[in-house]
């Protein structure tokens, strides 16, 4: 979809090239993060794609055409662009801001209105905001409008320059989640710049880690970067807690859970005791036709004929298949049973995750 071929950028009056020789192939529908220390040329790289900065060498091919052969103004109208402080036009209402590019490319009012409605829904923005000015919105709202505006004319490609850096951490987390949800549906080709490794890990399908002078140190999915950093630079750049960061990327659904000790409520007390001993956890889950009732230990079984008679205690926390292993780990270290119980929607028992199982996954 976008390929940078031996791209070079030298700014006048500087000895070394901002970008020496960068080749990067970005597939359709993927989200690529450009990360690296200050001076690595990540923003320069981004801005060369829509020619806000002109490369001094190489080719940038977008959808089969070299961008350098296109009229820059027309080119930019076909590419969504979001910047850190949103750059909303302060003298235009939210509606006018969102409609900027559709108007530039000549959509009629009816089509623009329909599109604005659609975007309001996608971005969960209040209709009342439409006639306000950007100065009247909160930072988080402005940022969402900024992204909505970039998507207004439905461009296949979006460029984002530190899109969530200007808002506080709580809002940023929410915006990132919303970004993932929207991207899941729209499948745009997105290139974004961030200085925040965790943001890159969370949002990108592949991350391009750049060194000073635009040297591409590694270009791979976050999971790979964390598991097998290409070199010391990457290892140092992604920082400590690589294991934990990787756990955040793996969903419980992605790995096999252990069945764990289980009995039905109709099982005899002796059978339950045997199950407890066999697993060595000191307790057994009571599951009735898939539904998790709770857990019992030897003490609770005293004087009972069946497992169902004993007073079962509920697990303090569960994880579902959509949770990450990092959340499962949190559940393990905070529960008395020392395991994470995995359930599907509606309390259907699936199994358990133990600390050993999770460390296996990190070491794999």
């Amino acid at each position: 979809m976008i390929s940078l071929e031996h791209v070079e950028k030298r700014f006048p009056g500087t000895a070394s090239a901002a970008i020496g020789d960068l080749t990067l192939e970005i597939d359709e529908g993927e989200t690529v993060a450009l990360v690296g220390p200050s001076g690595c040329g990540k923003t320069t790289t981004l801005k060369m794609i829509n020619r806000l900065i002109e490369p001094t060498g190489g080719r940038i091919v977008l959808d089969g055409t070299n961008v350098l052969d296109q009229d820059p103004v027309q080119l930019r109208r076909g590419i969504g662009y979001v910047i850190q402080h949103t750059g909303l036009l302060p003298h235009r209402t939210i509606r006018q801001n969102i409609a900027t590019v559709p108007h530039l490319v000549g959509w009629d009012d009816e089509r623009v209105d329909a599109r604005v409605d659609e975007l309001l829904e996608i971005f969960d923005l209040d209709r009342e905001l439409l006639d306000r000015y950007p100065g009247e919105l909160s930072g988080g709202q402005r940022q969402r409008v900024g992204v909505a505006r970039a998507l207004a004319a439905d461009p296949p490609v979006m460029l984002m320059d530190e899109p969530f850096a200007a808002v506080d951490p709580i809002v940023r987390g929410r915006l990132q989640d919303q970004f993932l949800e929207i991207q899941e549906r729209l499948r745009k080709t997105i290139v974004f710049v961030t200085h925040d490794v965790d943001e890159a890990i969370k949002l990108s399908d592949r991350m391009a880690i750049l060194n000073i002078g635009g040297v591409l140190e590694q270009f791979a999915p976050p999971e790979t970067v964390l598991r097998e950093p290409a070199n010391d630079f990457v290892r140092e750049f992604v920082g400590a807690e690589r294991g934990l960061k990787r756990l955040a990327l793996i969903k419980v659904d992605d790995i096999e859970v252990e069945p764990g000790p289980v009995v039905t409520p109709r099982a005899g007390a002796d059978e339950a005791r045997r199950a407890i001993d066999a697993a060595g956890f000191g307790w057994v889950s009571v599951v009735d036709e898939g539904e998790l009732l709770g857990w019992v230990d030897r003490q609770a079984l005293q004087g009972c004929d069946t497992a169902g008679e004993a007073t079962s205690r509920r697990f303090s926390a569960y994880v579902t298949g959509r949770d990450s292993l990092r959340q499962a780990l949190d559940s393990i270290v905070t529960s008395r049973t020392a395991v994470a119980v995995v359930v599907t929607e509606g309390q259907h028992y699936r199994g358990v995750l133990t600390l050993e199982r999770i460390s296996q996954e990190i070491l794999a």
Partner: protein
Amino acid sequence: MSDFFVGATTILAQQDTEPLIRWIWISDHADEIVSRGLQHVYLTIVTVVIGFLIAFPAAVYASRHRWAVSPITSISGVLYTIPAFAFIFLLLPITGLSLTTVAIPLIAYSLLILFRNTLAGLDSVEPEVKEAAVGMGLSRRQLLWRVEVPLAMPVIIAGLRIATVSSIALITIAALIGRGGFGQFILDGLNTFFWTPLIVGVVLSVALAFAADLLLLGLQRLATPWATASGVRAVAT
């Protein structure tokens, strides 16, 4: 010059006998007051409009080519320092007693203010707003007219207000060659030791300046609805 002071002193000496205002004079000269007023307004408009037509493109050019800022500021600064009398008398041999002789100095004086304010206005537009606008695909012309000029409007209009008010005051000097609008009454009053036209001239000049200033202030409010809206309702939700 000295004639002025002689006249003024004589008037002060006569103030016991002469009332401040003879209302009958005003009603007798209603037509003249109107025509002088129109002349004053006309000259003001000519000055500010032509001044702006020169200063605006210069400021736009300078905002894109920074090297031009300093020479343009210097030239308009030098023009600003030429004394008004000298300026008018220098032009007399060339343009005679025409409107042009008055208009040229007035326009020259307005340039410094109009240029600097327009440039400051264009410079006040936040870089990220411009970057986003260009990134979305606005052409240079669209950037100027749809983004930079509207956002620079408060500062540009502030410059127009200063230029207008100072022109209204300066125009009275043009009475020397019979083109002074209300200034003519001031000069007449001084020459004839007569309070009424002097006061009428001064009061109407000041009133005109106030009115023009208010008008432009209103225009600024109309042109920048976002500024008021953000100011009043700027709440972070």
